[in-house]
């Protein structure tokens, strides 16, 4: 029993790790393709059919580059920075419920690495740690532009984490639990008791705030101030080369994947979809949950596409606009959302 458990989790973790890396790899490809399509271009199409080997070629190129450590850099922290960014990006997927329990050869396998009852807090903790990778890397480079960029990244992330946390509180009022497994299973199906089950329909404003903050947390456009080329020569990873730079870029894409996952799980029902009971009755306990996971990934890809779509639509915010939006716009809005949610829940429960 014990060894079975270890093997099961080991396989799951390996698979998750591989999937995150694969998705991050192909996000770089998808980003360039989406950018090209939105601008009436073709995008990379030389490496393999439709250019699908492009990420591989990019990876090989990254590895082959010379590794330069600036003379006055703090060598140890210079190395820790990208590692920390990558680590924080990768461990976020541990608490996500990727599907319902699957029956394989008479055994019930949970498609979740661990169901800790503070799963949501864990995600927040990991996301907050992510900024340390940027901060340490920017400081250790011993370059003023890198440092400026790192400071921007830190202040931006801290500001938007507040609004993000407040938007989640309103969600918690609805769900009454921090466990991601329970939050997702509460959104079973699509319609129940005269209202949609997905949290998006219960918390539209909360979702909007959460999504804007997720854009800011992942340093994606229009909030990509930490790496704006025009002002900071590339940002916190300016002094980095070779695979250390690759790690930073990769971590950003994994972060995008994780935040898409969290949005899909919290607000768009995770592995739930309309008509899932019918499918479950007909396809059996092995294939129906796996189909649910497939649906989950489709939702995640839709969000990743949305991230890219927005990137090629909206120009970058000015720094004071960014802070103004975070502190004067989103935080009051999130607090108002909490109050309104509380009142509505009190009314629904008592009348």
């Amino acid at each position, binding site marked *: 029993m014990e060894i079975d458990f270890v093997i099961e989790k080991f396989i799951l973790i390996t698979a998750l790790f591989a999937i995150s890396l694969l998705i991050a790899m192909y996000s770089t490809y998808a980003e360039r393709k989406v950018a*090209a*399509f*939105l*601008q*009436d*271009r*073709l995008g990379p*199409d030389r490496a393999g059919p439709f250019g699908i080997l492009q990420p591989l070629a990019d990876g090989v190129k990254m590895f082959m580059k010379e590794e330069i450590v600036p003379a006055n850099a703090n060598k140890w922290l210079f190395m820790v920075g990208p590692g920390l960014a990558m680590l924080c990006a990768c461990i976020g997927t541990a608490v996500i419920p990727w599907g319902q329990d699957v029956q394989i050869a008479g055994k019930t396998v949970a498609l979740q690495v661990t169901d800790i009852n503070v799963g949501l807090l864990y995600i927040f903790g990991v996301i907050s740690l992510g900024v340390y990778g940027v901060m340490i890397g920017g400081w250790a480079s011993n370059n003023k532009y890198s440092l400026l960029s790192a400071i921007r990244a830190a202040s931006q992330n801290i500001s938007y984490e507040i609004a993000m946390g407040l938007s989640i509180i309103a969600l918690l009022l609805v769900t009454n639990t921090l466990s991601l497994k329970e939050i997702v299973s509460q959104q079973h199906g699509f319609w129940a008791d005269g209202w949609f089950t997905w949290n998006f329909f219960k918390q539209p404003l909360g979702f909007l705030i959460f999504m804007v903050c997720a854009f800011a947390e992942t340093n994606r456009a229009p909030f990509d101030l930490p790496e704006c080329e025009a002002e900071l020569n590339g940002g916190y990873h300016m002094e980095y080369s070779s695979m250390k730079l690759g790690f930073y870029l990769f971590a950003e894409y994994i972060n995008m994947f994780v935040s898409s996952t969290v949005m899909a799980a919290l607000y768009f029902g995770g592995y739930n979809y309309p008509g899932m009971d019918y499918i479950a009755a007909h396809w059996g306990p092995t294939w129906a949950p796996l189909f649910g996971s497939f649906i989950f990934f489709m939702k995640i890809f839709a969000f990743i596409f949305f991230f890219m*779509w*927005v990137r*090629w*639509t*909206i120009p970058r915010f000015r720094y004071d606009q960014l802070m103004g*939006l975070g502190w004067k716009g989103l935080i009051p809005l999130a607090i108002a959302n909490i109050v309104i949610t509380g009142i509505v829940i009190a009314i629904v429960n008592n009348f």
Partner: protein
Amino acid sequence: MESLSNKKKVLVPKPLSLAERMYLPAIASGLKTTISHFLKKPATVKYPEQEREFSINWRGMHSLKRDEQGRERCTACGLCALSCPAEAITMIAAERKNDEKHLYREEKYASVYEINMLRCIFCGLCEEACPKEAIYLDGPIVPADYLRKDFIYGKDKLVEAPLEK
């Protein structure tokens, strides 16, 4: 001061309305604009495989023409070299032998004819100067190369292929 033309307009910055301050309507219309391009036909020309057609007055690589009997038209008068503002053209003249009448149209011909493609500015003055209609800039783009000496094109690259008999 009083405006004489009365065309001057004083602009007063309008405060943003609530919808404008929310960013969202503007963002939504922006997203609509970008997605409308998603399935449009790309404007890309896949260059090495596909080539865009040149315009009719395009001036590319030079070619030394032959007449209808396949003889070289150039008579090595040197007007092209004189007219060239970039000093790109040089040649050595030679006298036609009796047994070469099928090769050269005039009694004098260019035994060496060189154009330095790094000097050439593709102005087309050589084409205009030529009294024998022997040189035209009707070729493709001059290809890239590694050494300067390889950009000096001789008759082997410039003269048209012989007519097929």
